[in-house]
């Protein structure tokens, strides 16, 4: 039951046969590349069991290095999002203000922090905390990582909030006004609840971005995050760097895939209830990663014409 595709006609018997041919050829090519990589790894001894053994034989790498690192990563990401959300909401609503000067200030802040790389924000947060505060050294890295992430994510979330509110059909505002609801009632009863459900998937996606960005803290600020645990593992088990990277990458991928899946599930679940006539896709420059296209849902048509 193939839904009609914009790219392909419904395949006939020849097309089906051709596709089988391509499948076979492609699998051969991929197989050859995989074989080359694996044999190189074997030759260089990277797949030798002793390099991998510590991860399964209860040597304590998990409890001593990986889990504490993971815990720090999760704490930093969670803190960053929790702080960035209200800031982003304020900035986003400020950008919709009727007063030009409020819009201008909020706009400048948002555009500035979206232009500066997170890494540079983190590095300077650290310098500033060190010079001008009495924060304990061991929290300094965490605070700097979180600060960089908050500044950046608040700006991105501001755009998400703004887009979320703007994506609602104009008819919702009009119907509410026509019933005699006041401006604040309109915002709190009608617009925000709908905007937030529309935005939830985007917010979860942003969490993925944040989680990945914490790794900058490990590489640059000696924040003892998940990625940073590689150094300690390899110091104990010789040069099993590749094994360590593979395990750590797998953890990131698993968590982020789970979050991405959750975002998608949420989106589908909300879409079912909302079944908007036409979703208006909104593109927001995110991350260190990039224009994650966010389907903001919400109707495209405005009730009036």
């Amino acid at each position, binding site marked *: 039951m193939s839904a009609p595709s914009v790219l392909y006609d419904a395949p006939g018997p020849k097309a089906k046969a051709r596709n089988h041919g391509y499948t076979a050829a492609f699998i051969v090519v991929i197989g050859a590349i995989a074989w080359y990589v694996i044999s190189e790894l074997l030759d260089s*001894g990277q797949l030798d069991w002793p390099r991998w053994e510590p991860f399964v034989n209860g*040597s*304590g790498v998990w409890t001593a290095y990986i889990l504490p690192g993971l815990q720090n990563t999760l704490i930093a990401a969670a803190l960053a999002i929790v702080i960035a959300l209200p800031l982003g909401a304020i900035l986003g609503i400020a950008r919709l203000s009727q007063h030009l000067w409020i819009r201008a200030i909020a706009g400048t802040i948002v555009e500035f922090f979206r232009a500066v790389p997170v890494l540079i924000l983190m590095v300077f947060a650290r310098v500033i905390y060190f010079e001008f505060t009495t924060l304990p050294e061991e929290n300094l890295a965490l605070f700097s990582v979180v600060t960089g992430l908050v500044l950046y994510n608040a700006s991105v979330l501001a755009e998400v909030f703004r887009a979320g509110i703007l994506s609602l059909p104009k008819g919702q505002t009009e119907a509410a006004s026509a019933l005699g609801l006041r401006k604040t009632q309109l915002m709190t009863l009608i617009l925000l609840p709908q905007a937030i459900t529309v935005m939830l998937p985007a917010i979860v996606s942003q969490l993925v971005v944040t989680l990945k960005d914490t790794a900058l803290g490990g590489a640059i600020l000696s924040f003892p995050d998940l990625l940073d645990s590689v150094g300690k593992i390899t110091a104990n088990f010789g*040069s099993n*760097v590749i094994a360590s990277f593979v395990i750590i990458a797998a953890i990131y991928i698993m968590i982020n895939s789970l979050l991405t899946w959750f975002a998608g599930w949420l989106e589908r679940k909300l879409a079912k209830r909302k079944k908007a006539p036409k979703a208006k896709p909104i593109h927001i420059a995110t991350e260190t990663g990039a224009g994650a296209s966010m389907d903001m849902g919400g109707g495209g048509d405005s009730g009036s014409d």
Partner: protein
Amino acid sequence: GDRNADSGNSGNSGASGGIVAKAKNDKKLTIGIKYDQPGIGLKTPDGKYEGFDVDVARYIAKELGVEESGITWKEAKTPERENLIEKNEVDFVSASYSMSDARRKRVAFVGPYYQPGQDLLVKAGRTDITDPEKLNGKKLCSVKGSTSAQSVADKYAKTVQLQEYTTYSECLTGIDSGLLDAATTDNTILAGYAKANPGKYKVVGRPFTTENIGIGLSLKDAEAKTAIYNALKKLQDTGEWKKLMEKHFAGAEGYTIPAAPPAQFTDK
């Protein structure tokens, strides 16, 4: 147990009473060590701490009246050691801490308690690299922020190709595959790796500099300086120093345990 997790305000005493008083009264100390340097300072997967610097720290603590159970270990990464001391978050640092003039502006040193020299690490069985001059046209690895590799290029081998990494483990993968010919840093660190990976690497054994490694602590705590001086002197005098060196470095291919440095345990 992961002591790194508890935030411990144990360090604060430095400003008030000094660490000698603290050790005496509270029976507690917070000490900065390396977590990722085999032979020097290493946090093992079962939560233990080992290495020459760690044992020296234990000895000093004991001399100050603090048992192992009273020690809180803290990771002291290279760029953070001064900060940790200045902010009184550790009582002292024992982490292959070179006593450089730049650092003396911010922290006090007691030492040297050992004097490694810069040396080279190569694949076991390799015979062509016998001293730094042989590195011309070869690929040499060191770790970011250390000046050791640059000095080889400046002084011994003009056409060496330099590569910098974040950790020495990364250098080792390059030596394993043959991409890199050698790694350079203090011979004790190299010996730590050689010993941890028996039969894989060897130290060339021709140190071409002399580093002074000391215990770092607050500039303000004169009493502590003396106490640590006494502890280190006792370490040498009792022959314990030699035992610790052998415990951690004996058997590393190409590395010979040197004599204890001349007893001159306080900074100028």
